[in-house]
């Protein structure tokens, strides 16, 4: 086994031992169920509550299309609570290795910084991506059951876009976790920055083209409109480029041994 495989395997074993392998998918399944169920029952709940007081329910709300509901699962659930939970679950990814000296210790072995980082990012990304995909799939099943069905091709294309945004989230959080030493600061910076990226999506097409969070918008558009935005390629390239930048910074930071808090 090469060092990358040894380190990645250690990450997976750790996820199992710390029960992350159970709770993170459960969180995303829960988030995935929430949107279709709430959208479906909300009109009748409001009706029951508002009964005699003459609140009128917008009929279009009751008749949402499946794609729209699935899009709001991404936009309203995953992009808010979901992103925060990913960040919190990953804030210690490198920080805890620094804190207990394991990073320095591992690097006294003939291990390259590259295999350490790729072991971290690839294993964590695979796991987070599977959790997200699972939640998304469950959401899809509920949507099909409660609303209209969604084109399977659109479903997959949207997921792929979305997982690219997740890739950036994972690599960005890893970078922040490498640079800063306090979990609170790491969570704060990552949440503010990543949610900030997501909020400014749609303000300007120029910014969107270099904003990795626009991947989420493209995913939603595919689900709602059934077509891929012509600008999506720029967003894909931007997301990949920014991911590469974060990995590069992480690599330099560890190679220069800056983590030994000099």
């Amino acid at each position, binding site marked *: *086994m090469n*060092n990358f495989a*040894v*380190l990645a395997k*250690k990450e997976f*074993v*750790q996820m199992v*031992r*710390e029960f992350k392998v159970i709770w993170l998918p459960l969180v995303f399944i829960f988030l995935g169920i929430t949107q279709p169920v709430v959208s479906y029952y909300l009109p009748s709940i409001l009706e029951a509550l508002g009964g005699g007081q003459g609140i009128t329910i917008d009929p279009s709300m009751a008749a949402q299309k499946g794609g729209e509901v699935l899009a709001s699962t991404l936009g309203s659930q995953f992009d808010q609570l979901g992103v925060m939970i990913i960040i919190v679950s990953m804030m210690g990814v490198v920080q805890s290795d620094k804190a*207990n*000296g*394991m990073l*320095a*210790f*591992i*690097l*006294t*072995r*003939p*291990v390259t910084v590259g295999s350490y980082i790729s072991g971290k990012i690839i294993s964590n990304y695979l796991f987070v991506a599977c959790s997200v995909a699972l939640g998304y799939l469950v959401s899809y099943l509920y949507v099909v059951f409660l609303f209209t069905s969604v084109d399977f091709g659109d479903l997959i294309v949207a997921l792929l876009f979305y997982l690219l945004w997740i890739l950036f989230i994972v690599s960005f959080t890893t970078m922040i976790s490498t640079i800063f030493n306090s979990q609170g600061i790491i969570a704060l910076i990552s949440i503010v920055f990543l949610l900030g990226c997501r909020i400014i999506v749609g303000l300007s097409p120029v910014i969107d083209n270099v904003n990795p969070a626009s991947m989420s918008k493209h995913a939603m558009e595919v689900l709602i409109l059934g077509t891929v935005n012509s600008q999506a390629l720029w967003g894909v390239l931007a997301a990949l480029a920014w991911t590469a930048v974060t990995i590069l910074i992480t690599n330099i930071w560890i190679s220069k*041994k800056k983590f*030994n808090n*000099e």
Partner: protein
Amino acid sequence: MKLEIKNVTKKFKEKTAVNNFSMELQSGECVGLIGPNGAGKSTLIKVIADIIDPSTGEVLLDGKKISKMKKEIGYLPQYPNFFQWMTAKETLTFMGQLSGIKREELLNGIPEILSKVGLSGEENSKVRTFSGGMKQRLGIAQALLHKPALIVMDEPVSALDPIGRREVLNIIKEIKKDTTILLSTHILSDAEEICERFVIIKSGKKIEDTTMSELLNRNSGNKINVDITSKSQKWIENVKSLNFVKGVEVMGNKLKIEVEDIESNKNMLLANALEHNVDLVRFEIDNDTLEEIFLKLVVEK
């Protein structure tokens, strides 16, 4: 194997932890790096283990940069820490695989090394449940596992109780037979027990590079301690009048006699005592204890 530390200086912002330190280590040697708290021992050892880069200077193993020779080095940190959720066996498998040892080799190597450090029976216990001494032993096992040419240990026994200390010292004595060892400690007598050579470091500077016997000889002050019984008190006046005696300190029945040359004078003094039928209780060369030598070196220099 040859380790060369060449003019290593390490600065932390304003503070110089290691100051222009040089030394060489030959294959098979066991060297104790001794210094008080904050002397720069851990910093120097971390430079050797390639955990921190020196500000200036370099460390070479067999003429090659230390960062290219990691397979040849085993490192035991001052406070060994492992993944709490791993078992002892998993820890060694993990570190062993990172060192490039094959799975089959580990299968035999791990039980062997665990019994060597006295941890057999604990292979499936979580590191979380380990005491300080057990972690220290696991740390030693990990440092030995890949059969490095050089083992660097940062205070391997300082944190242990007398029993653990004894056991770990014995383990080190055992491994010293086939490996080169550099270990740091602030307890001279620990180093004395396992190492022939000492390097004393203070405020980041090397102030001494010597052997135990040399150190003891150099510090003996031409004095002889003689204990007598009270009925021989009158001999004291006689001693004072001897021409090679430079001074006598009397504390009850204990005498501290300073002579001109210890080698030739010690037997003359003894002969004189026998001649006068002195009732001797003790007759010995006055040596500074290791503690005293250590204090002298690090406080005075």
